[in-house]
């Protein structure tokens, strides 16, 4: 029998993998993709709860998360494009002027 915990642990694992990506990758596009992965891990949690609590609200939230994720990806990629135009680089470590 698949329990809620199965899904939660799976979701936590995917989330952590996404965190690794955001943390260590030196390519902004991959970082952005890792963020998508994290979002989806959370989505999985929502859907699992929705199923196990018998409430549609989880699915509705996922719907909104998707909308937000779409907006986020679009804006993120637009930023990446314009940054790349200026610096010819996608390495987040090359973009550290915003300090001090």
């Amino acid at each position, binding site marked *: 029998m*698949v*329990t809620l*915990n*199965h*899904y939660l*642990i*799976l*979701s*936590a*694992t*995917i*989330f*952590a*993998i*996404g*965190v*690794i*990506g955001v943390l*260590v*990758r030196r*390519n902004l*596009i*991959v970082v952005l*993709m*890792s963020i*998508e*992965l994290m979002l*989806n891990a959370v989505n*999985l949690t929502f*859907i*699992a709860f*929705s*199923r*196990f*609590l*018998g409430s*549609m*609200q989880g*699915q*509705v939230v996922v*719907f*909104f998360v*998707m*909308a*937000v*994720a*779409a*907006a*986020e*990806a*679009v*804006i993120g*990629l*637009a930023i*990446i*494009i*314009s940054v*790349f135009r200026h610096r010819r680089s*996608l*390495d987040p470590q090359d973009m550290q002027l915003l300090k001090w």
Partner: protein
Amino acid sequence: MDASLIVFYVLAALLVLTSLMVVFLRNVVHCALALVAALFLIAVLFLTLNAPMVGILQILVYAGAIMVLFLFVIMFLNPVAQEPRRVLWWGLGSLAAVFLAGSLAVFMSNGESLVDPVAANEAFGSPEMLAKSLFTDFVLPFEIASVLLLVAIVGAVVLAKRES
């Protein structure tokens, strides 16, 4: 071990594998394709969780739209620079993530697990039900989400447009 458990484990294993590929593959295009696979698998998991509508939307929005956009941008920029890899940083990052996964897993699963799924009726997760929720209880967020998307469209155009 019943069939659903086997299906779950297979899907979960594949999902973890593809997720790891997203993070650890060197080639950005490979990463993106691995992510497409991961998202597809999550969509399948959604289907097993009585959420067919959301599952299809997942494919439509994520795999069909967002990831195509990613690939489009990757091809558009065609970044050739090799990522430098620092073993220490990678090790530390992975270690931290393992801690996070461990503590999250313990944290989330130490409650009493709901083993007996609520007997969902036929329509649970159907387009009708989702639509009813969206257009009654959540109609305001729904409209706000549409505004958000509009703003994102305009913002993306402004950001990505070449100054002339």
